């Protein structure tokens, strides 16, 4: 039993899930604004790189995190301009950004550090223990003891995103754009302005998620270190039905499967089978609840002004 449910296991599940749910929130802002964001992978990678480099140069991990967010914003702006202004297919723009960032980060590593595989060690965001809260039975040890501040901010962002999406004018308009853009236009919504905002916010969050990888859990940038987490975030977002709390739950499920894989190694369960679980689950959920789980109706469609 303890093998399937120990505090250590849950802690590592949360650690693995952190970049996934933050990435999924990034996906939500973009897709709920009607723009497909396959580029999450590249944006995260760019954020991880920008974060590590600036943390290294400034000696301050938090300035690195800020830089990661700025890098993400730049990527988001790029995706927005290419897919909204130049009206390029959004999936193609995403594929291009992923290719670009994979090449560019390695290229810059060679130029800056003379090493294509990894950067020098950079200051990282240290874990904290929140006083008082860490005394709460069980929960305290899971969430408030020796935890990365990025995880805590990430949890806060889930709440914030939920509030934005369902209790603010911006959120209402976002949802309107992604479901019925013509109605939104008729109601006088500046569709393109909000779409830019959505995609740029998406980039910022993706960059933030990237910083967790390079200067959160680790203290270096290694080449292609996102290793599919951007795509996984998309799966998390879909599994979570394009909702913040749903995405959080989905990411914990993914994280649990991956944490379990490490803990089950002594049982001789091939890790590859455990690795497959989240993707199978996503497909099965999509297939069997298809009536209820569907993307926002107009996501990916070009909107005429």
């Amino acid at each position, binding site marked *: 039993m303890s093998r399937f449910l120990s505090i250590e296991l849950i802690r590592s599940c949360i650690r693995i899930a952190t970049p996934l749910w933050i990435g999924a929130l990034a996906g939500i802002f973009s897709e709920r604004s009607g723009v497909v964001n396959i580029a999450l992978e590249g944006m995260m990678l760019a954020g991880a790189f920008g974060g590590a480099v600036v943390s290294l140069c400034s000696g301050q991990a938090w300035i690195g995190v800020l830089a990661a967010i700025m890098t993400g914003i730049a990527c988001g702006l790029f995706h927005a301009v290419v897919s909204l202004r130049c009206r390029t297919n959004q999936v193609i723009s995403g*594929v*291009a*950004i992923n*290719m*670009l960032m994979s*090449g560019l980060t390695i290229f810059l590593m060679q130029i800056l550090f003379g090493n294509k595989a990894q950067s020098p060690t950079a200051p990282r965001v240290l874990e904290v223990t929140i006083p008082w809260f860490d005394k709460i039975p069980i929960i305290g040890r899971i969430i408030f003891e020796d935890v990365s501040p990025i995880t805590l901010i990430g949890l806060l962002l889930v709440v914030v995103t939920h509030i934005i999406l369902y209790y603010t004018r911006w959120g209402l308009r976002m949802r309107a754009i992604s479901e019925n853009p013509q109605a939104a236009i008729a109601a006088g919504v500046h569709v393109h302005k909000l779409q830019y905002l959505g995609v740029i916010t998406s980039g910022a969050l993706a960059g933030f998620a990237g910083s967790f990888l390079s200067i959160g859990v680790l203290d270096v940038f290694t080449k292609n270190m996102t290793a599919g987490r951007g795509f996984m975030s998309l*799966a998390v977002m879909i599994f979570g039905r394009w909702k913040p709390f749903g995405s959080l739950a989905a990411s914990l499920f993914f994280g649990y499967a991956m944490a379990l894989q490490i803990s089950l190694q002594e049982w001789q369960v091939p890790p*590859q089978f455990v690795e497959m679980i989240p993707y199978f689950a996503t*497909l099965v959920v999509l297939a*069997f609840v298809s009536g209820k789980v569907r993307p926002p109706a107009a996501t990916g469609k070009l909107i005429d002004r």
Partner: protein
Amino acid sequence: MKSGMKQDSAFRAMVAPLLSVVGAFLVGTVIIGLLGEDPLVAYAALINGALGDVQALANTLQKATPYIFGGLAVMIASKCGMFNIGVEGQMYVGAMAAAWAGFTLTYLGRGAHIIAALLIAGIAGGIWSFVPAILKVRFGVNEVIGTLMLNYIAYSLTGYLTVYVFKEPGVMPQTVKIADTAALSLLVPPSRLNTGFLISIALVAVTYVLVYRTLWGYNLRTTGANPAAARYSGVNVSFMRISALLVSGVLAGLMGAERSLGVYSRFISSFSPGYGFTSIAVSLLGRDNPFGILIAAIFFGILEAGGPAMSIATEVPRELLSILQAIIIIFVASGAYISKMLSDRRVSV
């Protein structure tokens, strides 16, 4: 008159990709200049490394081969209005299936063995694209998501089979070697360019006929252009979508087979540097036309084969070329907008 118009549109179709390539290389020139290197030296080394002698040329074509298969695979789905992001996974499954046939069906004679291995690889790739096809048609699951998820399942599955079932003793995550009877013969040894390249060339012609000269191809393009109109005119849209993804997956499976049977002589876990994803770029650059894809694939082969020579002759990292590939995609994809912008300006002047 009519043929004149046709020539004109063919010319126009060529212009945007060519301009995009030129534009990307201009960007590259600036980057190389900023690094304090001579762009001409870098590009000369690139061209020389890719086309300098027979071996270099063969190596370039070898690198281009997966992109020919992959570009065609993406194209078939795209003609039907779908995105097959899963070429990567379908290729992995095909590569594993081909290798399995290569070291298992050893009782077959030489010709039969190769054909059986290719067939099995095609079927494996087809199965891998059939799943998202059914998910799309029956359950309404977007094919971009379906094929993407199956990529991961393919990595894990082939990884498992490599490490736990067919592993060659040693530290490398690779299967045992295929029998010689299943090997695609090398065309210009020692280069690994093999008969798989010739198969891919043949498939360029086959897919062209399939798409532009058959009823299936006509229905394919109609469905892609306007599914509602296709449905009203009696086309079975679901059938077209399923069969398009199926053909796409078969091509991707063959793409993997060429690597296993011709280049590595075995299956190697995570052998691909993203062939399936780059194939999307190839199909785009080739304007979703089989012959265009052939040219685009060879062009990408030149970049990859010449890259090492470039980074030896100068201090320019060869990743510059993947940056250029990405820039080319963005230019080509936004070409329609850019040319509209330019022509609008011309009118206003």
